[in-house]
């Protein structure tokens, strides 16, 4: 069996004059969790809608197991959309049974599957409650369950943790991992949360303004922008940020200095050891520290490195 399950070739989509996705090329492997990372409006949803066959590309093609996405067997893909797409007047169980019927899942199997999904996603108690009376988190989980009822080979999750509290998010993350590890599914997820992409994905595609900027494993991506830690600081006179950055750049052992939203990010090996040097420099300019913290390098730093800006929310 071919290891590549989805192949995207020269995918392009324009709406009127606006180019939403530009020459996207990528291969997704069977059984991996593949993350699309990018700010809102980067073209993530447009890309995945084309990849599942809901949206027609302007040019290029998507091959699933070597076949055009429009010609694949229905039910190969399950998609959990970003918005809540539910029938307000059906109960959880009715919704799941309906989608199961639509995918022609045989009756006895469907019943078992519904029970398992309700149980896995902590919805058993609410099985017979109509959707309009569920809490936001429950609706999210049902939204996900509906994408999985027919046991699709490929599961596409568009911003799955949007609007979830930390506890529900943890439930979701564990569930996504179990989809890959226990059921061998290929999972594609889009997110604008660095943390989510970092923790869940086997590989991450960083995308902005419709362009693929980088595609690699999270650890490689972090390595690429250099190892080490990041010092984030805010100085007393933001007007002098640039001047200060230029002089810090000249210091030894400093990998990079960037300004993000009036905050200065300094990436360095052994950042704590470099702090006295940085402070000396600050004094030299007659400035004070307003806020300072030291943390590990994250995907966000990769993103900043690639785009020159922080993630737009």
């Amino acid at each position, binding site marked *: 069996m071919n290891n590549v399950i989805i192949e995207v070739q020269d995918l392009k989509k324009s709406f009127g004059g606006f180019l939403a996705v530009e020459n996207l090329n990528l291969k997704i492997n069977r059984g991996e969790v593949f993350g699309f990372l990018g700010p809102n409006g980067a073209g993530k949803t447009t890309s995945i809608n084309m990849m599942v066959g*809901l*949206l*027609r590309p302007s040019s290029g093609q998507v091959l699933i197991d070597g076949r055009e996405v429009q010609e694949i067997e229905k*039910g190969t893909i399950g998609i959990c959309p970003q918005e809540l*797409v539910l029938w307000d*007047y*059906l109960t959880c169980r009715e919704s799941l049974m*309906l989608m199961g*019927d639509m*995918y022609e899942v045989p009756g006895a199997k469907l019943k078992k599957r519904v029970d398992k999904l309700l149980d896995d996603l902590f919805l058993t108690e609410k099985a017979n409650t109509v959707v309009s009376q569920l809490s936001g988190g429950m609706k999210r989980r049902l939204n996900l369950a509906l994408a999985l009822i027919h046991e699709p080979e490929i599961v596409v999750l568009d911003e799955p943790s949007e609007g979830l509290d930390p506890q529900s998010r943890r439930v979701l993350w564990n569930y996504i991992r179990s989809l890959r590890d226990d059921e061998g599914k290929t999972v594609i997820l889009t997110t604008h949360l660095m943390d989510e992409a970092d923790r869940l994905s086997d590989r991450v595609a960083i995308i902005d303004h419709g362009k693929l900027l980088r595609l690699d494993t999270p650890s490689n991506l972090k390595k690429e922008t250099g190892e080490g830690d990041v010092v984030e600081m805010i100085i007393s006179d933001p007007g002098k940020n640039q001047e200060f950055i230029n002089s810090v750049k000249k210091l030894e052992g400093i990998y990079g200095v960037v300004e993000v939203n009036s905050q200065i990010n300094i990436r360095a090996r052994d950042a704590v050891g470099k702090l006295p040097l940085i402070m000396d420099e600050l004094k030299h300019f007659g400035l004070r520290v307003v806020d300072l913290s030291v943390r590990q390098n994250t995907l966000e730093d990769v993103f900043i490195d690639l785009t020159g800006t922080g993630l737009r929310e």
Partner: protein
Amino acid sequence: MKFISIAKKDFKELIRDRKSLAMILLFPLFFMLVFGFAFGGMGQSNQPHNLAVVNYDKGATMPITGETVNFGNNLTKVLEDSKYQDSDVHLFDVNLTTESDANKKLEAKDVDAALIIPENFSQSMVAMITSTMQQPLTTGTGTSASSFNATATLIIRGDTGYIGFGTSQGILTGVLEQYKDTLVTQTRSAITGSSGAETTQYIQSKVEAISGTGSFTTFDFLAPGMMVFAILLLTTTVASALTREVEKGTLARLKLSNMTSFDILFGGLLPWSLIAGVQVVILLIVAVLIGFHWQGGLNSLIFALFVGIIGGIASISLGMIIAAFTRNDNQAGNLGTLISVPTSFLVGAFFPLPQVVIGHLWGQSFQIYDILPWTHVLYALRATLTFGGGWDAIAYHVGWAALLTAVLFVIGVVLFSKNRLRADN
């Protein structure tokens, strides 16, 4: 069967959304009430209807008295003298004339209706009186009283698409029934009472106010049209409901599955047909409660329900076609109204339209409006409710309505599949 799952789902959504359901069902009620009051003649004075009478009656001889009678003349006199109930206004403005002149006047709408009295009318009446008189005597002998055939057919002629005719014929039918009944009861009392009583005298003195005719109004003719209009507005409701599925994204969910256009539309058709049926029942009940004088008894009501449901299914199909083009609730509402309201005019729900014949089929002229199923629904409703026709009178139109509705539904399935179940652009 995936369409059954969709039907169940739509049915649950319909009955669980109580507010929307109440609106869908209360709408025909209010609608009929408003139109009933508007056209039901409230506060409106009764006007005499223009009636042309063509009398071919040759007269007959009464069996006992040997007296020569002409019931045609008598009926004409009765019609001239009849008044609205509790009113001094005459029912008819009678214009005694020839058949060709009557036809001309009908065309020019100078008269609302023409009554043609056949030449054997008196003979038939005499036969009826004779048989009535013989009835008590022949009881138990086993011989039939009416051994001779003397049926006379009174013809009421007019343009069935004309409101004036609709009301006039309703009143006329009532008067004629009354005339016959009066003759029979008076003949009976004549036999049991004093001998030698003159039937004709009884008639002349009796028929002054015809009970029941006082409330005959334009509404009696318009009610079927109102029903068709209300049924047509179901188009908008269905278009909105289906478009909501697009707007909410649930259709995108469904279209990734094995569901077909037929599944979602036929599945939707079932519960909506039920709604259409309930709407028609409500329309009929309200119409009758506020004084709709329908003809033909319970049969007519059952036919009307059947025909109304076909009209409802046609509206549902049209709603599905609209949903293939609209992206949100608002658009569906607007486009639905934009199409269904002019359609109701085109099918003649409010007033008759000029004749535009485009061909002839099975001896019936086929007009341009006849390509719309609701035209046939309206014809059939009128034929059965206003004119009291049975299955024979409506079969042709029911057939057309059903066929055209099926065509609309197929168009809906094709368009919906093409515009809504493929990848978006």
